[in-house]
């Protein structure tokens, strides 16, 4: 069966640098944006399964503090995405 891909301008797949700890924990460290700029994640304040109505999808949602602002970072089926503001 062909895989159907969804082209949604509000769903931005991003490159993420992350650490996989020995106890199985996964902590995203920084996000590399479309323009190759790298944003350091200062703190992850919440992790839960959540749907993104805006970007269309569901996955593990990491609430990340970046430059003093909260951003949702989703891990869905092995790929990371953020919602376009």
């Amino acid at each position, binding site marked *: 069966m062909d895989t159907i891909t*969804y082209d949604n301008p509000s769903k931005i797949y991003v490159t993420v640098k992350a650490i996989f700890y020995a106890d199985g924990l996964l902590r995203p460290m920084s996000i590399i944006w479309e323009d190759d700029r790298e944003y350091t994640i200062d703190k992850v304040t919440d992790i839960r399964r959540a749907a993104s*109505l805006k970007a269309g*999808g569901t996955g593990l949602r990491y609430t990340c503090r970046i430059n003093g602002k909260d951003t949702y970072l989703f891990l869905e089926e092995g790929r990371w995405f953020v919602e376009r503001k």
Partner: protein
Amino acid sequence: MHSDLNNYYASVECLYRPEIRDKPVAVCGSQEARHGIVLAKNYLAKATGIQTGEVIWQARLKCPNLVVVPPNYPLYLRYSRLAREIYAYYTDQVEPFGLDEAWLDVTGSTHIFGDRIKIANEIRKRMKDELGITASVGVSWNKIFAKLGSDLKKPDATTVITRENYKQVVWPLPASDLLYVGRATKRKLAYYGIGTIGDIAAADPIFLKSRLGKWGEVLWAFANGYDNSPVIRMGEESIIKSIGNSITTPRDLESDEDVWMTICILSESVAARLREQGFKCRTVHVHVRDKDLFTFGFQGKFPKPTNLSNNLADKAMTMFREQYNWSNSIRSLGVRGCDLVTADASEQLSLFCDESRRIKQENLETTVDTLRQRFGHLAIQRAVLLQDSDLSTINPKEDHVIHPVAFFKEGRLT
């Protein structure tokens, strides 16, 4: 309780395609081939009168600006799995009914999570928050009313049907709302002036049975809330519904001996396949077609689930002897194990049958499996089958369809 994901395929598509959320949407099969039908639709499409099963052009007549999208089954499967993970948080008694529906029995977990209504509402909230789709939940003391309840208020609602209110809530509904009342049954019921579920409940069960057969009585019990079937525990139900083999023999079967040989071959194959898949069956079904192509079947239950060829063959043969009077010779035979359970499910030993003999038999058949796997199907065979040397060509398990040329040659078996 029964949970029903609203407009399942369409809801998932709308979540993944924000641009179509405010438009009438239908998920349709293979549009390019021009024979696509509507598999699911959202509420905007529903409002225009589009029905599931309609052809795309019919749907477009009703709704010219209909957005048609192709189905994405891998995604629906993933969502279905995620929904089941949410159910599994509350109970291990989750019985799926298709991808988008499931029964849950939370009787054992109310002391942890609160009462049934609280759990139902929490499940709905989690569906919305975590999966981005909505569910309707029906809460009741039996599966039939729970399912009925989940259909009453949509989307994203909990409906409670209690022993106190069911006569007001359920009985005025049309008979066709009841599970298993299809078009044909609805018509028959209407013929006898039975239009609502209340009418079914008030009818004489003996009368219903005489008109609708066994189902008449079942529907009467459903309508009165007497259904007490349990919600199956996760892992006990299986996706494969039955395993069977059948064979059309080159010459018609004339005697019990012919039939016994055939049943042995078929049962061995079915039993081996059951073991291979890790199942046991609770029921064996025998299918007979006589030389005038008249087809019928009969089935019988085992006292306990089995995957042994001897059990299958003995039961099948006993039933055959009881049911068939040799008014005609037989053209084809089939043996099928149904009502499957997983073989590793814990089982109740019986005081009344020889367990050590059963274990011996089980070991024997597993050994036969291994021998055949290593040295080929013909390495070991039943003596009864050796009455015909040409039988050595038969391997129903791998061939699936078998046509032993010499097997039933005139006079060979007599």
